[in-house]
Structure formats: C-alpha cells, structure tokens
C-alpha cells in the first residue's frame, strides 16, 4: 500500500479516535486499535533508519495501549526491540511508553499498587482470559 495513503489514513484515524474519546464515546478503544494497525503498516513500510519508521513504531505501541490492548503493545514492543538495528533512543522510548502506562494504572489504583504491580495483574488477567473462569476452559 502507498505510504501516502497510509499517512492520510493514520491522520484521519487519530483524529477520529481523539474526537470519540473527547466525546466520551466508549468504542474509542476500537478506533485506537485501528490507529495501531495502520501505524504497524507504516512501521513495516519505513525502515528504522528513517524518522517516520521510528515514529510509526512508537505510534503502534502507544495506540495499542490507548486501545487497552496491553498484550498487543507488549508484543509489538518485543518485536521492535528484537531488531538489532533499533537505536537506543527508540528502545528507551518504547520502554518509557509501557512504563508510563503502568504508572497511570498504579496511580489510579494506589492501594492495590502497594502490593501488586500492574504487569503482574495483567499477566494473571491474560491467563484468566485465555482459560476462562476458574481456568476450567484450559
């Protein structure tokens, strides 16, 4: 797909997601999911050596988090970090995005955060989601 089209699509998708969020419309998460998918396409289209490639990688992870899809955000981060040519600034940036998301949850649930990390809760919730209530669907 033409990168110009992707750029147009991502700009529109971000605008749409932000407007939905501003209006308090719940399905904003699916709009952010769309943004993340387009950013991922852009990340594939642009190499790491180009600024747009690095921006797209950060955008894909950031939008996945805004969509509430931590698993996707983590998977994308792992894939981007595994690229040996990834510059240190990008690696630090991706870690920062994930850490900020964890800090946001910790500050929202301060009492729980004194005993448990968001990452730990997320891992357990993911297992729960995979295996169903009581793990009986495993």
């Amino acid at each position, binding site marked *: 797909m033409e990168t110009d089209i992707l750029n147009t699509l991502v700009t529109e998708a971000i605008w749409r997601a932000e407007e939905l969020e501003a209006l308090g419309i719940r399905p904003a998460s699916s709009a952010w999911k769309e943004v993340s998918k387009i950013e991922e396409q852009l990340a594939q289209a642009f190499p790491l050596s180009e600024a747009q490639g690095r921006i797209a990688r950060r955008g894909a992870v950031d939008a996945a988090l805004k969509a509430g899809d*931590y698993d996707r955000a983590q998977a994308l981060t792992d894939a981007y970090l595994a690229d040996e040519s990834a510059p240190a600034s990008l690696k630090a940036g991706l870690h920062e995005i994930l850490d900020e998301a964890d800090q946001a949850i910790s500050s929202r*649930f*301060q*009492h*729980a955060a004194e005993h448990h990390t968001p990452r730990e*809760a997320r891992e357990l*919730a993911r297992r*729960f989601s995979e295996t*169903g209530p*009581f793990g009986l669907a495993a």
Partner: protein
Amino acid sequence: METVAFYSYKGGVGRSLLLAHAARFLAKLGKGVVALDFDFEAPGLHYKFGFDQISDPPTFTGGTVPYLIATAEGAASPPRLIDQMLVPPRPVDIRGWVWLMPAGPAPHKIYWAALKQLGERLRLGDPSGQGLMALLDLRARIADELKPDYLLIDARTGVTELGSLATTMLADTVVCMFAVNQESFDGTLKVVEALECAPRLASQKPIRVVLAPSRNSVTDIVVSEVAANILRESGHNDLQLFVLPHDNLPASETLSAFLAALQGLPEAFRGTLSHRYRLRPKFFRTFHPPPAL
C-alpha cells in the same frame, strides 16, 4: 486481614445466610468484619443483615457496583468507602463490629441501571488487568482504611467471571458450599480442583478451601463421615470439611439434636457418592455410623 469468599456452584444452598451468620459470630468474638456483596446479578446480602426495605427513591445509593463505576471512570478522588457501607444494628453484648458493602440499592431500578453501566465501563476480567486491579484496589483499600480482621465476600454462584475473580484472586480462604446431590457435588468438586491449582499473585499464598455441605436431608454427622471418606478416596486429603446443619445455624448449637436423630446411611446419598467415584462396595459395608444417643 483474612479474606474469606463464600462460593457455591449451585444456588439456594444458604451461602449468603451462612456469610451473615459468620459475620455476626466473628463480631461476637470481638472481631471487625466487612461483608461484601459480589453477587451482582442476584444481590441480596443486605436482606440477611436486616436491610429489607428499599425506599423509592433509595436513600442509600452506594455499594460495590456504584463504587467500581466511579473507579472505572478514573475519578481523581475515589468515593469515600464509608459512603458505600451499611452498618447493621449492633447488639449491646457484641464487642466487635460488622460493616456491610452491598452490591447497591437492589432491587431498585437504579441498581440495574448502574450494573449495566458497570458492564459498559469496566470488564473485570479484561486482559488489560485494569478490572483486576480495580478489584484488588477495593480489597486493599478496605484493609488499609477500615482495618477489619475479616473480609467476607459473597461470591457469584456458578462458573462466572466475577465468581472466579472473587475466589481465585481476592480470597485467602474459599468456603465452597454444596447441597448433597449429584449435580451440586460434581460441579463443586471441579471448581475445588481448579481452585487448588489457580494461578495467584506473587504475594499471595495458595488458596485454602473449606467444603461445606448444606441443605442436608440426612444427619450432619453421616454427611460429614461419608464426605470425608469420599474426599480421601479421591485424593483430596488436605481439604477441610465443615458440614452445616440444615438450618445453617452454628453446628455447636444443633449437633446434639442431630445426633439424637441419627439413623443409618440413606440409600440415596450412598448411591450418589458411590456412583461418582466408583467406590468399592466394601467401603460402604465397612462404614459404621456412630451410635444414636
């Protein structure tokens, strides 16, 4: 704070009533107790504490569901816990205390509207972990601010997301109640086996499971002996068993009456359990119920 979840695979076994009795009993011993209604789809714990008159409009609009909605919204200052609680009248001879956090002003329509809203705003088992953090935060906040000795949770019946989270993620101890019949027993044991190997957070100990047969049509001592043997035979050596009298009053008050009424092992009960575990007939032949008083 010890967190005890009261769970039943099937409904109608007296789960909420037992919780209310346990709360009062612990308060009698001088303990501080918070009772939490997590049976969102069929809330009624407040009735067991005497709050059976819901005015229209309700004067009380707090509870677990409205609280979780507020936290799902990410309120900068979460609502005060004390505003979500009902305080049952305390007899003068009770040294401890009981506070009740009902699900909400059920069955008034504003409760069902709130429950619908919660479903739209916060999926408790969401893979993002936010729903789980919200539940863990509620428990931690109760511990930090109210400092009870016990948190008793009325968990949702059956195999549900909320019932699973209340037991596997929040509880230190799970009381699994069941009626003495095939379907109740089979389902309960599946859940018990799942609880025993449920994943836990790093700081949590393994779940302690207590089995509690209820609504017995046979005498408690018979149920107790047979159920204990069945559990041993099926490899559950470490499960604790507490058989409840039919009326759910504390066993100490009614046990002598039940012993007096003791008769042999009813055929129906024998059939149910022997079929389930394909036990050798020898097991039942060698079983001798204690003599009647």
